[in-house]
Each structure stands twice: as C-alpha cells, then as structure tokens.
C-alpha cells in the first residue's frame, strides 16, 4: 500500500542547495557611551580646569565570532551642553599598544539659554571597520573653550549619550 501511495504521489521541485545561500544579517542597536559632567567638576580647589580626561577599556568587540561577522557599525552621538562655555570633545580610539587609530571630534558651542543638541553620526565601514575591530581603549578628552569663568556654584552640565548600530553578516 505504501508503495502504491508513493507511486501515485507527486512532489514539487525542491532545491536543497539553497541552504548554501543561508546567511544572517541581523542589525543590533546598543549603548556605546554616556557621561554627564556638571559644571563644578571643571573647578578643582577653586581653579578652573581647561582639560578633563577619561579613559575606558573598550572590549565589547572582543568576542571572536562577533569580530569576524562585524560588517559595519554606525556610532550616533548626542551632546547637550548647558554650561555657558564652549567645549571640544575628542574621542580617541586606541589599539592594544596605545597607538591612536581614530579620533572623533565634536565642537560644542557655549550654552546661551536655549537647548541646542549637537548630533553626529560616524559610519565605520570597509577599512574603517577594521580600525574599530583593533580598538582596545577609548579615551575622552574634553577641552574647555571660551566663556565666563566657572566656579563651584556654576550651573549646567555637559552631557553626552551615544549608541551603536551594528550590522552583522553571518554566513
């Protein structure tokens, strides 16, 4: 009976080699970095600091399969300055030997009473994404520009939020 059934049955044409076309192209969004520096942090012992500095190990791309499959990454930055001072923010990407790979810079004007968000998108693709894969450390250098002198009671803060959109290709 089974043979009879099979002899009467049909089958649409199937192509199992399509498995070779299989690939995953997920797109993930994730936090990249964030900070908020109140105005009084630029004043130490009553003295204005013209430069503040922060550093952080950058190991989120450490996972080997993630490294292999990373195709593109977009960094999106949003800066909100409510201090009556202009700033330059430099984000330095360094490799394992502290060699500079990439600098992302922002010019931030002084606060004048109305909120002004500075946004910037950095696209890492092709050769630039390889720099990102070699990055082991991020340094943040904030240089204070023109504006009235700050004291311990100066209002406002310098705020940065950033995210990464990561494009993977798994095949």
């Amino acid at each position, binding site marked *: 009976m089974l043979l009879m059934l099979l002899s009467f049955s049909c*089958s649409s044409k199937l192509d199992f080699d399509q498995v070779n076309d299989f690939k995953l192209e997920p797109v993930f969004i994730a936090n990249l970095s964030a900070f908020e520096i109140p105005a009084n942090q630029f004043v130490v012992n009553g003295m204005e600091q013209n430069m503040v500095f922060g550093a*952080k190990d950058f190991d989120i791309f450490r996972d080997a399969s993630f490294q292999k499959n990373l195709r593109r990454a977009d960094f999106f930055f949003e800066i909100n300055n409510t201090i009556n001072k202009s700033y330059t923010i430099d984000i330095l990407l360094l490799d394992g030997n502290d060699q500079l790979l990439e600098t992302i810079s922002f010019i931030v004007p002084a606060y004048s009473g109305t909120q002004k968000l500075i946004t910037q998108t950095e696209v890492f693709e092709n050769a630039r994404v390889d720099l990102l894969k070699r990055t082991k450390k991020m340094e943040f250098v904030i240089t204070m520009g023109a504006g009235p002198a700050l004291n311990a009671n100066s209002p406002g803060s310098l705020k940065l939020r950033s995210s990464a959109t990561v494009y993977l290709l798994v095949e």
Partner: protein
Amino acid sequence: MRKVYLFLMVFIAAGCFSQNKQILYNFTTVPQSLMTNPGADVSYKFYFGVPLLSGISGNVGSTSFSAYDLFADNGVDFNTKLLNVVHRSSQNDKLVFNEQLEVFSGGFKLGDWLENKGYISFGMYQEFDFMMFMPKDVAILALEGNRDYLGKSFNLGDLSLKTEMLSVLHVGFHKNVTDRLVLGGRAKIYSSAFNATSTKNSGYIYTVPGTTTAYEQVIYSDLQLNTAGIAAYTAEGYEGDVARDIRKKMLFGGDLGLGFDLGLTYYPKKNIQFTASILDVGFVKHSKDVETFTYKGYYKYEGVNPNFDGTNTPDNAYQQFVDAIPLDTIYNAYKTWRPIKFNSSYQYSFNDSRGGADCNCSVSESQYKNAIGAQLFVMTTPRAPMAALTGYYRRNLFDKLEMKATYTVDSYSYKNIGLGMSSTLGAFNVYLMADNLLEYRDLAKANSLSFQFGFNFIFKDSNSPY
C-alpha cells in the same frame, strides 16, 4: 557558525505531529495494538514478531511550514523564505519526531485452551524522541536583530526542547475479567542511551529608549540544559564509535527508569465497546555522563562610560557581562518524566446485508463486520497538552483482511485521513498503516506523514485444543 545557525533554524520549524497512533489503536487483529492499550481485546494462543520487523513506526512533519516553503525552486531568496516561515509561526508551534523499532516481541496465553488466566505479552523496542517548540523570539533576534524591535521584550522562555534515545523492555498482562471487561497493564524498564532536556527556561532581552544612556538594555536569563550520555562523545580525545557506543548503552548500559501502562476494554452492550489507556507513566533517572549547563543572571548594559577622574577603571563591559550571566556546568543527576499518553475510544459495531449474521458466541467485536467509532488522544508536552480527535470506520473482509479508515482533527490539521490494513494468511500477519494520505498529492508540501508497519506470526486462540 553558519552550520550551527542552520541547524537551529531547521528545528525552528513549526511542526505538528505527535505520537498519536490513531490507526493502530484498538486495531486488535495486530498484537502491537497492545502497545497502545495494554487492555486491548486481543486474543491469541501465542504470537511472535519477526525480529526487528515486527513494529516499525515513525512520524515526521510540520504544519505551519513544509519542505516546499523553505526549499521551493521558485526564485525567492532562501533567507526571505526562512524569515517568512519564522514570522508565520507561533512559539507554541512544535516539531516532534518520533521513531520506534521493535527489536523483538511475543506473547502467549496462560493456562489451557479453555481456561481464562489471561495473556502475557512482552518485548523490547527502541525509541527516539525529539520535541522542540518554535523559539520564535530568539529566531527573530538572530535573524533580524533588535533595531526594528525597540520596546519589544524577547522571550527566552521560547527555548524548549527535549530529545532522547532509549530502549524499553516490557512485559504486559491482560485478562478478560468478565465477559464484558478486559483489563491490562504493562511494566516497563527504560534504558536511556542519551537525553538532552531544556524545558524550564525563562528570561528576556529588551531595549527601550533611555534617559542618561541612549537605551535601557537588559538581559535576564534563566536557561538550563540537562544532558546525559552526551558528555563522553563531545569530550576531547574521544575516539570511539558513537553509533556502537549508543547501541551498547541502549542494551541496559544507560540510565535506567521505570514506568507502566494501564488499559481496559469494556462492552456495555454486545455491539458497543469502550476502551481507555494511559501509557508511559514513568521516569528515567539520569546519572551517567551527566552535564547540566546553565546561563543564569541579570545584566544591564550601559556602555563604555568614563569617569573623568583621571583613572582607567578596569570594569570592562564584556567581562561584566560574562560575570553577570556566567556559563556554569553542574554534574548532578536529574530525572525526566516520559511523555504520558492517554487514549480512549467508543465504538459501535454492526452488520449489514453483506453478511455476518449475529451468532451466539461470547461477546467479542469480531462477529461484526463493520464498526464506527471515535477516539481521543491526549499527550503531555513541556507546555500545554496536545490532543487529537479521530473518527473511524473499520471493516472486516473475508476474515483475513481488516481495514480501518480514520479521519483525525487536532489543533494543527483538520484533514488528516489515514488508512490501515492487517492481513493474516495462516499464521502470518502483515500490517501497514499510514496517515495524512492527502499529503501524498504533493510530498514536498506535506506537513506531516506517519506510518507503522510490521510482520508477526500469530497462532489463534481457538475454542478447540487443536
């Protein structure tokens, strides 16, 4: 990596087929029907199955997609088809694969030819089970990422799978307690060659817009995979023959368990029959080669955030994550329950003008040429039980050939037509059953197929000594 993903994707397949043997159930000219109801009204002087060929059964299938949906040669990109299949499915779709092979089987009547001391049946079969629910959320996350799903909580509890290879040694007894009632039971010893169970998972991953950071991103994970009998093969330096080692373990070198089946057949009237059975109430204790993997923890990812106090604080995001949700391996024994199956049927028998006049012999359905009936099947799964309802027609042709046609409705299919036949020539019995016959119109589009067949030698219990 691609192969690993593909393997997962193939099993994402949403399926529907169970261990429902609706044709074999209560098909009493076949002694194997005792395996679906130990209290089935089967009589014989003695019988034995042709070794390795007495009972072969398998189910394969899926309703929410077919081979055609994924592999159709229609110019549509494979990845598009895959995505469509995932989106169309629900996390309650499941893929179940079951295969059984009787190694040996036999039975004999106790006592002399006129005595009513009952019947013994025994045997050993090998069984492979696989069940996996569609991990829909996890599949979407892997295929598409989270960018387009801001605010969605991906449910890690969608991950649920169970697989096992075991052999079962069993002995059953059934007896006509009265003219109207047959009771039966079967004891089983399980020997599990390997088992992998991951059914009690929970957790979530979500990304929502944040305030101080760009997003609020949280992973909570409570995942656990129990394995037994697998560690030895995956260990480094293993140079044995996996197939041979598994065979060896199935012959009671594996993890042992105990279980039982119970069943009955009752005739409230001569031509009305009621049956019920409960199968595989039992457990296996896994203690050999046990490895349990867990991913348990909570992690909120905030990014690479500097302090501006002049120091490089060494709290690395990746390491934090690994520490927050560590992969732990535990070596404790664990217990698994066999999927419990419940069957019941109600049957009305009658004769028509084609013959089979009433006789005065003892109550037994075999005097009737025709029977119609309904059956219910319920099986436990790691989530809600699955159920199926079957209507059937049975006919005896020339005493040598018995046919049964079934129509089954379950939560996945409403057009499952099955056909079974059992033919006895002398002592030689052949049976063959297949369902989802409509699917044979185009096998590539078939959602599920199942079959049972086997060969036995049956020596009838007659009312005369010779």
